[in-house]
């Protein structure tokens, strides 16, 4: 079978000391998909995303990116090979300007870092007007946009977003998910981790449901959205 896998995680086990955060998690992301991870706080979504990026050490299991194993690779190499993480809480640098934050997104890009800038400003026109502003003075929604824009600067083959809707007002949240869908249409492969299950499942192709470090359900996003268990646990009950 021809593998169109951008990302493949096989039976990953991650522990923080005696606490087992991930117990044998396996997921895969195909090119051009939006895959969503849903689950409560502490279920292991962030741990998975950070393990993929090499920030957290895995005890066993494998992570394959574009067919190559990156399980124990250094974060800087993983990022350079084309994975971007937009972390929970945005992770922008408040004491640096918008432009500098964007430039940092292209830090490891060898060529002209600004070639993606045009596309990014089209997606996020707000940022163009604020290039010299200190990132810390932006609103929550604008910071989220900056965070995503920064992740785009390096034209990543896989974008991972960890709880991007956290702390955002409902209208901004809708804009955010619209943006994610648009980016996906332009060709970006996206792995999304969200507590806001409803909106996330609406824009995704496939999803995985996490509970205490394990994948308990997986399948097409539509099916998951209609699944009784998921409805009860995350979508406010059966209608």
């Amino acid at each position, binding site marked *: 079978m021809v593998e169109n896998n951008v990302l493949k995680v096989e039976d990953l086990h991650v522990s923080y000391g005696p606490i087992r955060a991930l117990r044998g998690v396996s997921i895969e992301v195909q090119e051009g998909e939006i895959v969503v991870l849903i689950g409560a706080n502490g279920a292991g979504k962030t741990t998975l995303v950070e393990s993929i990026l090499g920030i957290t050490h895995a005890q066993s299991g494998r992570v394959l990116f574009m067919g190559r194993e990156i399980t124990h690779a250094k974060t800087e190499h993983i*990022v350079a090979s084309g994975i971007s993480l937009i972390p929970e809480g945005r992770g922008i640098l408040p004491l640096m300007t918008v432009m500098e934050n964007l430039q940092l997104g292209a*830090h490891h890009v060898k060529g002209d870092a600004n070639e993606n800038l045009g596309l990014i400003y089209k997606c996020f026109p707000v940022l163009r007007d604020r290039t010299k502003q200190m990132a810390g003075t932006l609103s929550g929604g604008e910071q989220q946009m900056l965070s995503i824009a920064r992740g785009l600067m390096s034209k990543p083959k896989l974008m991972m977003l960890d709880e991007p809707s956290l702390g955002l007002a409902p209208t901004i949240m809708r804009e955010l998910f619209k943006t994610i869908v648009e980016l996906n249409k332009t060709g970006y492969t996206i792995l999304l981790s969200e507590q806001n299950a409803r909106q996330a499942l609406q824009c995704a192709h496939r999803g995985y449901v996490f509970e205490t470090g394990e994948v308990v359900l997986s399948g097409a996003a539509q099916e998951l959205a209609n699944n009784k268990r998921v409805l009860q646990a995350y979508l406010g009950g059966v209608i």
Partner: protein
Amino acid sequence: MEIFIAQLINAIALGSVYALLVTGFNLLVVVGGIFPFAYSHIVVLSMYMCWFAMKVTGDNLLAGILAGVFAGTGFSFITEPIFRPLAKRGAVLGSFIVAMAMSLIITEIMSQKLNMGIVISFPQSLQGEEALIRFGAATITAGQIGTVVGSIGAGFGFFFLLYRTKQGRAFRAMGQSPFSARLLGIPIVKTRIYAYIIAGLLGGISAVFLAMALGTASSSLGDNLALKVMAVAMFAGVGNLGGGLVAALILGLSEGMVLAYLPGDWSQAIAFGMIMVVVMIRPKGLFGTMA
């Protein structure tokens, strides 16, 4: 009156060297993630290397300068692996104690092995024999001018690096949030090593200027300088580069002026005074810390 001006120039020269030292110190704090108590001691050790080089080359100015600069850079580079496990754990107090131990080792080496513990004095050629400007009873030497100009130059160079280059951005990113820096693919260990190298470079340059400004060095100079550098850093806010410059000049000026009227011992008292003032009124420093 002319004597006052001469002392003022001396004080400015001293202050500008302190500014360089504080900058190197802050860089190690912010990017290195440690408390570099032994930084000043490495600088003094470099002064010894400069002196030694001049001795064996018959007072060759260039040899002395190169020796000092390379020594500073090299010694700083060597200490990076020692602090690496502590920086990784974020153990700042632990790094302080290690640095304290290191400083004592360096002081012991200087007081026992180098020049058999006798105070070293730098040849006149380092201070610029020909007085450049003379008015009344006061003279300004080439050394003093060189120090001020050189420090300003080095300072500008550093700030250019920090605010206009890719590596500088990486430094600032790491200083503000090592986690975010990691996510962006900034190589953490390599960046830290660069920081040590640059701090060492600044230290080496400072060593040469200090040799010019002070004319002598001894094993106790390390502790003396360390206290002043920390006082300045605390006064301005540890990690605050811009504030550090201003505070360094303040210290240099007050010290230069006080030295004219009180024995050298008491110059440390000013540094102590600055520390206590800051601690009592604004523990985060007058201009606030960086991160």
